[in-house]
């Protein structure tokens, strides 16, 4: 499996699913969703993506894939992206 920057341990398939999840819902570039293409990512992007999801879901923004974050990611949900238009900052109205 391609190795990803941002962490010194090879990521298991399990982690790739989280990459796919974050890409599917707008926290990472959509290209990450394509499992056939290797995707080098720096750590800060990875941690920022996790932190953004945690902030949106009302969790502690640790930037780490902790248990609580994994639990929320496993909840059934709507398939529409949380961030419409990748990279858009969520302007609070």
């Amino acid at each position, binding site marked *: 499996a391609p190795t990803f920057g941002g962490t010194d341990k090879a990521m298991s398939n399990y982690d790739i699913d989280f990459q796919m999840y974050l890409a599917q*819902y707008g926290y990472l570039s959509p290209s990450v969703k394509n499992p056939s293409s290797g995707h080098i990512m720096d750590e800060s992007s990875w941690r920022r993506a996790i932190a953004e999801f945690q*902030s*949106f*879901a*009302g969790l502690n923004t640790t930037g780490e894939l902790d248990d609580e974050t994994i639990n*929320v990611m496993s*909840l*059934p*949900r*709507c*398939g*529409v*992206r*949380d961030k*419409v238009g990748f990279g858009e900052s*969520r302007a609070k*109205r």
Partner: protein
Amino acid sequence: YALQGSRWRVKNLTYKISKYPSRLNRAEVDAELAKAFSVWADYTDLTFTQKGKGQVHIEIRFEKGEHGDGDPFDGPGGTLAHAYFPVYGGDAHFDDAEVWSINSKRGTNLFQVAAHEFGHSLGLSHSDVRSALMAPFYRGYDPAFQLDQDDIQGIQALYGHKSQIDIGGGFSQNPKIPRATTQQPASEDPALCSDPSFDTIFNSADGATFIFKGEHYWKLTENGVAAGYPRLISRAWPGLPGNIDAAFTYKNGKTYFFKGSKYWRYNGQKVDGDYPKDISEGFTGIPDNIDAALVWSGNGKIYFYKGSKFWRFDPAQRPPVKSTYPKPLSNWEGIPDNVDAALQYTNGYTYFFKGGTYWRFNDRTFSVDTDDPAFPRSTGYWWLGCSSAPRGTVGGNAR
């Protein structure tokens, strides 16, 4: 809340269900999806009309796996459904691999998920308010579901407030005519129909009619109870407890609620100052633990009922309650003692409710109205849309 950036330019929208779920009754799906649309219609001037075929604004399909839009579903759990914003067509797709359910803790509640998806079809993106309908996560069946303020602000940012007042429970001006056909989708509530008594009934300042029972409330339409009810009193009127004794809305537009020795004043659904207060403080001369209260159509004064007695409260007089009160309730000829509720309805007539029956009062003769069928009548049939309730007179005539 977050707006995607597009919305419909028209407010009368049409939809069709091109592909139904494989494991639910079609008529039930029609009713649940109409209820899901009415969640948004309640707070805006949007209307939603179902079509059988042809060109519509919003197409609804239940599909499995890859279904032609490049965004395949993933089987049970995970992604439940998705919808397209108005600029992308507004359609809504539901994963038919899910166990869709209606009014049940089992499976995934179709009404709640559909109401969420239709929020997208109208231009709402996901909200980061966890209690909002537009939060992305499904958190289980909620029998007392209602929109969060965040959702209401979002949809009204797109389509404005509801301008026309939907007259709740509106008999036609001539109350002799049973329920007119209604525009608003209505439904009958099985629990309420099996015991059609309630704690109180009142009109809000904008003309809607509500009934309170225990911790819950229902909004009445022209031929029954509005879809999507019951809801929790405490979520709509923050700070107000359940099991309310009586309520009325005065000509100052404020709504007064009574329970035990206390009363509350609300401006719409916002508490209007430091409440609760003692009834003896704000309504001197009126006892605690009243049964019912109304503003009488005959003279605009406020009447309170308790047991076999009644009191008249006139805010313009000092004292507001004359020493000649209380008087025997039998003065209201034909009305029984110990009523549950009373109201001056939006058609100008005065109604009294007890158990599952009600009486219409004739202000001119100062006695129960004569009509066919005679009173008392079944509250379930005439007010709550209970198809199984009797249309005619119920039980022996009152005294």
